[in-house]
């Protein structure tokens, strides 16, 4: 079992013209399930490849259990990796694929067979061992790739968007199965995805990345409750947090046409441009102005009945604010008031850094 630590790791490509990663500091505890989350091109895959040893850091150091591993080849790091396209060897059978890492390490055939049997049973692919990868469905290939990674009992388990090529139903299934597997095996796992739902569902700790850097490291709950920047806030939640531009003045936020919102709890007394953030699920919509408390005024743009909830999109000062409500009889063009509890509001400064709540 292994703890991973990255210290100031940067990776540049094209002789420094492209910055893939910039000064990553990350600690992954032994047995932890860490998800690197970010939009495409944010450097999360490069970060994973740095841990795998497929890339060498341009700066900084990577440690496995306190031992520096930058110069070690992937095969010397005892990592296992599941690639986005699974990278199954097309000319080998399923059994050949799964046994390959054992064979390379010179494990005797009898042992290999035992472990093959064990791992295929674990992943429910006992019946597929004689087939070639081309004959398998997407989900089965996924399982074979996982089996190949698990079979040699690696100290670190790396997964690069492993579920992105599956359909929605299968993705959900594999998601819980992966989590169960990781719990059982307790192998340190780094998982890359652009899908925030996947990240929230599986991770012990989510690492949000953007433009090659880490924007926030937090457990899923904290990430949701306290997004550290406006960018992270917009990335988490479905639909994501509404952010409204305004001006901060004497403990309240002026949202121009939409009205003014009191914000007494915010620390500091700096005036200036800020963003007010409220999650759709924390907004209520009503046709009448509330007797007290904060309210934002707007016009209903669209109403999307989703079954379990209704999404009301309201135009507020030229931009659309979404609210998740249980039920509504509002219609397009209705004038409405959006209300929320003081505790549910977030305030970000002009650099997108969180001001409140602290």
């Amino acid at each position, binding site marked *: 079992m292994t703890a991973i630590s990255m210290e100031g790791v940067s990776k540049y490509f094209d002789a420094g013209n492209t910055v893939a990663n910039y000064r990553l500091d990350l600690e992954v505890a032994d047995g932890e399930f860490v998800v690197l989350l970010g939009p495409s091109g944010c450097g999360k895959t490069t970060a994973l490849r740095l841990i795998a040893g*497929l890339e060498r850091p341009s700066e900084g150091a990577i440690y496995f259990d306190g031992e520096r591993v930058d110069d070690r080849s992937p*095969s010397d790091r005892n*990592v*296992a990796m599941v*690639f986005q*396209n699974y*990278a199954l060897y097309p*000319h080998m059978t399923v059994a050949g694929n799964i046994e*390959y890492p054992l064979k*390379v390490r010179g494990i005797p055939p009898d042992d290999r067979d035992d472990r093959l049997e064990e791992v295929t049973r674990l992943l429910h692919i006992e019946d597929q061992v004689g087939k070639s990868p081309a004959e398998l469905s997407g989900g089965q290939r996924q399982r074979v790739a996982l089996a190949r990674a698990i079979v040699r009992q690696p100290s670190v388990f790396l997964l690069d968007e492993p579920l992105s090529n599956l359909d929605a139903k299968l993705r959900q299934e594999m998601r819980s199965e992966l989590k169960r597997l990781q719990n059982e095996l307790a192998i340190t796992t780094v998982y890359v995805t652009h899908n925030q739902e996947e990240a929230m569902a599986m991770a012990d700790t989510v690492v949000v990345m953007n433009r090659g850097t880490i924007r926030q490291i937090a457990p899923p709950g904290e990430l949701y409750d306290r997004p550290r920047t406006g960018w992270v806030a917009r990335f988490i939640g479905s639909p994501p947090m509404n952010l409204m531009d305004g001006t901060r003045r004497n403990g309240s936020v002026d949202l121009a046409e939409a009205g003014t919102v009191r914000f007494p709890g915010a620390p500091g007394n700096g005036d200036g441009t800020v963003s007010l953030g409220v999650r759709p699920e924390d907004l209520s919509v009503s046709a009448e102005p509330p007797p007290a408390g904060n309210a934002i005024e707007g016009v209903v743009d669209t109403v999307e009945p989703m079954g379990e909830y209704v999404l009301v999109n309201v135009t507020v000062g030229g931009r659309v604010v979404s609210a998740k409500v249980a039920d509504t009889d509002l219609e397009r063009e209705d004038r409405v008031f959006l209300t929320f509890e003081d505790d549910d509001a977030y305030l970000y400064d002009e650099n997108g850094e969180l001001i409140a709540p602290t």
Partner: protein
Amino acid sequence: MSLRDHIGDYRPAPEEARGIDREKAVVLAMFLVPGLTLFAIFSVGPIAYSAVGSVFSWEGFTIGQFTGLDNWIRTFRDPLFINWTNITEMQFPMGALAQNLLWVVIHVPVSTLLGLGLALLFADLTGRRILRSMVFLGFTVPTIVIGLVLLFVYDPQAGVFNAVLRAVGAEGLVRNWTQAPQLAIFALIAGGIWVQTGFSMLLYSSALSAIDPSLIESAKVDGAGPYRRFRDIIWPLVRPVTAVVVIMGIIWVMRVFDIVYAAGGSAGGPGHVYSVLGIEVYRAAFEAPIDYGKAMVVALVQLLIVAPLALYIARMN
């Protein structure tokens, strides 16, 4: 034509369907006939002509009596075609067929392996396009020029090969390589390899670049070193191309003519020591004394050797 054409596809009434068929036939004829006519007259026809002619006697360019396998038997007994005595004594000339096959046996494996080696060597280097083009250059040059270049390279006085021999102190080996009866064929084969390696390399390079890089990376993560990665992943994936490379090599070598002609004229070297089948066809058909029967037999032998291979390639796809 246009309206009926597409409406017909959706409402194929019987009388209209016939019309469509006629129309399709007209279109087919319009598109196929011009090309196929030329193809028939200048490619298929002459081959059939040779096949038929090979069992007739010939008076110059005019066909004579049906003679059965006479031409075939006569050709296979011709020492210029195959010289059994010299073969047993391991001495050139061994006859064009034996020499041509010797060419295959040396040229094809060596150029294939070299091509694979260079493709692997260049695969991940910056500037690989230029490096590959340098090696491939010879394949775009007229083969008659290749023959003349070989003549120049092997020249005892002006040739760079002999200069290298002198420089490394092998003065004794200096000679006019393309005219040395027992060695010349190997010198020419080396030249053939020099040219064709570029072609094998091109095919292997494209096969290598078609390999999903994540397979290689996966093998790295799985713990495979460079040798195992080649043996277990790269080689099995480029192996199908090897069949193509080898067969194309055999076809190329069985057709070799220009290089030999440039080095040794229509005789195929002094005393025919490195004559090949193409040379024998040319001499029999177009130089006195004209022997059309033999020319046709030899050319058919060339075809019979490579035809199964070509069909094998076709079946592979």
